[in-house]
């Protein structure tokens, strides 16, 4: 191909997308010719992971600029796709539709929160941090406020938040690898980890960028294709997003008809851990305004504080491009997020509507137990029925399902060919891998650049710095996998915590660093450490039986943490001396897009 790689990007990824669709078609034909479900699953996961590893290898680099910020030449739209993949994790892909399926409106706050945060990113932070010319988020904190303690505090917050997040992602890759490759979870976690490291180790940010674009293409096809197919197959409408109003209303009708019967505690004990029944209305407003708003707000402020997202905007060629790129990121995220509630609707209706051939509520237990997909998912510990009232027919309150099953099992329930289930597994793998890559890289870069190079050994040569970065990448990856293998927290829960940690410690120090000239070092340190400590204390307090206050739960503890952070930062800044002239000049320079970046080209 002529010309340089960047100019050829649309062509390269166009061919790649065509190749992937071709692969899906080949698999579909192979299925018709008798290829087993297991072989299809293995083929999908192995083929896509191989492609990512190949891209990772082709992107290898020995330059600091390429390793940390992909040479700052990623075009707007492609950076948008990479950010979308970076952003949409195993939680978004596998768990979110399930959360909406079970909790309805209360959990749809996540949709609003995980998109609205980008408005804050675009208007408050991304363009200014891009102008700054930093390699990492602590790099900004360390230079804006000055001093090693400020820099180090930022590294601490970043590590706590990102590490909480990454264990959940490695857990998700492990779950999918163990199902698709049929190996025990404890080993599958390490298979997932090695796939993740293959993408990032040689090429750093450059490798991660180009694999994330590839992963976005896989995950969006894998999410949208089943939603459209199921909707058409059910006769619900060829474009589900605009045509499911009747289905939503029908679910409401059925809820009225069945009622939400509360199960006895003794009965619930027999239900396997992690499975839940439908206990909340689907489309009715079932949460108080504050419960909804506080969750959305926590997720929005968390979005604007998560370093692995922010550092994606360091890779654009200009400040202008950084702003546009945030818009593209959100557009690509919107494609998946607006489909999640549609999938939840289709999944729920196909299961509970007695008028549909797939509906199981109202059937006898013997009938349901004879269904193939019920047996499969029951064996996988994701579905369970029990005749609590002993009448022999399945009632709404007697059917239990795991959150992951909404995305993973719905294609099979709706009677789609197995090739779609294989595709969905590859999509989930892509979503979890891309996020894990971004996170591990964010931690390793912060430690190698900010702790090792800026604090410990400022004279280190590039080769040595990059070696340290790569060794850290492996160490952090293995630490994450080891904790993931212990399965402490569910996927969705730990992801939400990560947002709360990030907003507790970083939101105000970052925002005020640009928007409040008076903010100084002492204030920033108080804000970061005070916020993180307050948030952590609140989480521990609520988890150990504390009652909490103002309706702030363990999912929204960042609201308390960031409030403490704001107050600490403002008070301490005001009682200590204002920043020196040079720092104030630096803030002025950050605020205009033109001119040189604050930090030199290779610092």
């Amino acid at each position, binding site marked *: 191909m002529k010309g340089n790689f960047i100019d050829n990007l649309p062509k390269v990824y166009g061919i790649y997308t065509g190749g992937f669709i071709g692969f899906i078609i080949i698999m579909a034909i192979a299925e018709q010719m008798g290829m087993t479900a297991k072989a299809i699953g293995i083929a999908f996961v192995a083929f896509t992971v191989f492609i990512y590893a190949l891209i990772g290898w082709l992107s290898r680099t020995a330059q600091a600029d390429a390793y940390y910020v992909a040479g700052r030449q990623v075009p707007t739209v492609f950076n948008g796709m990479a950010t979308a993949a970076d952003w949409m994790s195993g939680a978004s892909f596998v768990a979110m539709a399930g959360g909406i399926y079970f909790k309805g409106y209360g959990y749809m706050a996540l949709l609003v929160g995980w998109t609205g945060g980008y408005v804050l990113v675009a208007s*408050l932070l991304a363009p200014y941090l891009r102008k700054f010319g930093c390699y990492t988020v602590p790099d900004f904190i360390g230079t804006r406020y000055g001093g090693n303690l400020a820099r180090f505090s930022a590294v601490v917050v970043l590590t706590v938040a990102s590490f909480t997040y990454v264990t959940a992602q490695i857990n998700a890759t492990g779950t999918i690898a163990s199902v698709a490759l049929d190996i025990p979870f404890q080993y599958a976690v390490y298979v997932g980890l090695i796939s993740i490291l293959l993408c990032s180790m040689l090429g750093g940010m450059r490798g991660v960028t180009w694999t994330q674009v590839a992963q976005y293409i896989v995950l969006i096809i894998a999410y949208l294709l089943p939603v459209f197919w199921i909707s058409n197959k059910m006769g619900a409408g060829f474009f589900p997003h605009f045509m499911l109003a009747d289905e*939503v209303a029908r679910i409401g009708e059925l809820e009225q008809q069945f009622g939400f019967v509360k199960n006895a505690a003794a009965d619930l004990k027999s239900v396997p851990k992690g499975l839940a029944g439908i206990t909340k209305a689907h489309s009715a407003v079932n949460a108080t305004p504050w419960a909804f708003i506080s969750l959305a707000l926590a997720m929005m402020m968390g979005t604007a504080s998560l370093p692995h997202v922010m550092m994606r905007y360091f890779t654009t060629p200009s400040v202008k491009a950084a702003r546009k790129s*945030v*818009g593209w990121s959100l557009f690509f995220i*919107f494609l998946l997020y607006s489909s999640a509630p549609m999938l939840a609707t289709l999944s729920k209706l196909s299961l509970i509507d007695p008028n549909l051939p797939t509906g199981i509520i109202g059937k006898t237990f013997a009938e349901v137990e004879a269904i193939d997909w019920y047996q499969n998912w029951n064996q996988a510990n994701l579905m369970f029925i029990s005749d609590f009232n002993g009448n022999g027919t399945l009632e709404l309150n007697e059917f239990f399902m795991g959150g992951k099953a909404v995305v993973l099992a719905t294609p099979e329930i709706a009677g789609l060919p197995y090739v779609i289930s294989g595709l969905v597994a590859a999509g989930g793998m892509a979503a979890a891998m891309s996020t894990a890559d971004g996170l591990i890289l964010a931690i390793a870069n912060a430690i190698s650049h900010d702790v090792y190079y800026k604090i410990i050994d400022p004279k280190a040569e590039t080769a040595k710095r990059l070696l340290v970065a790569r060794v850290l990448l492996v160490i952090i990856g293995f630490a994450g996998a080891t904790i993931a293998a212990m399965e402490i927290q569910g996927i969705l829960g730990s992801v939400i915590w990560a947002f709360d940690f990030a907003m507790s410690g970083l939101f105000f120090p970052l925002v005020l660093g640009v928007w409040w000239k008076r903010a100084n070092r002492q204030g920033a340190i108080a804000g970061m450490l005070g916020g993180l400590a307050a948030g952590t204390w609140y989480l521990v307090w609520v988890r150990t039986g504390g009652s909490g206050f103002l309706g702030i739960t363990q999912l929204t503890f960042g609201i308390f943490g960031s409030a403490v952070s704001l107050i600490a930062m403002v008070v301490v800044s005001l009682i200590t001396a204002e920043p020196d002239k040079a720092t104030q000049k630096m803030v002025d320079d950050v*605020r205009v897009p*033109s001119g040189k970046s604050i930090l030199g080209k290779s610092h």
Partner: protein
Amino acid sequence: MSNQQKHWEKTRGLLFITLAIWFVFSIGIFLFGAEMNEVTGPFGYPWTYWFTCQGSLGAFVILIFWFANRQEKIDEEFGFSEREDE
């Protein structure tokens, strides 16, 4: 007032407008979630349900592109936009 101060003043003004619109779609309308959900909205969905699925999300996408364009105009007006070769 220097050129740079004026530029920053306008930038800040744009920020406040952007955040106000953001507030309406992310927080404001959900204060009235229960009442609004009684009314049928776009494509036949209840209003609040539609906003949480599509409406607010789409509004954020449009808002960011609108913001980016307005900010570019402000930068150009005061001569602070980047040269293409930078």
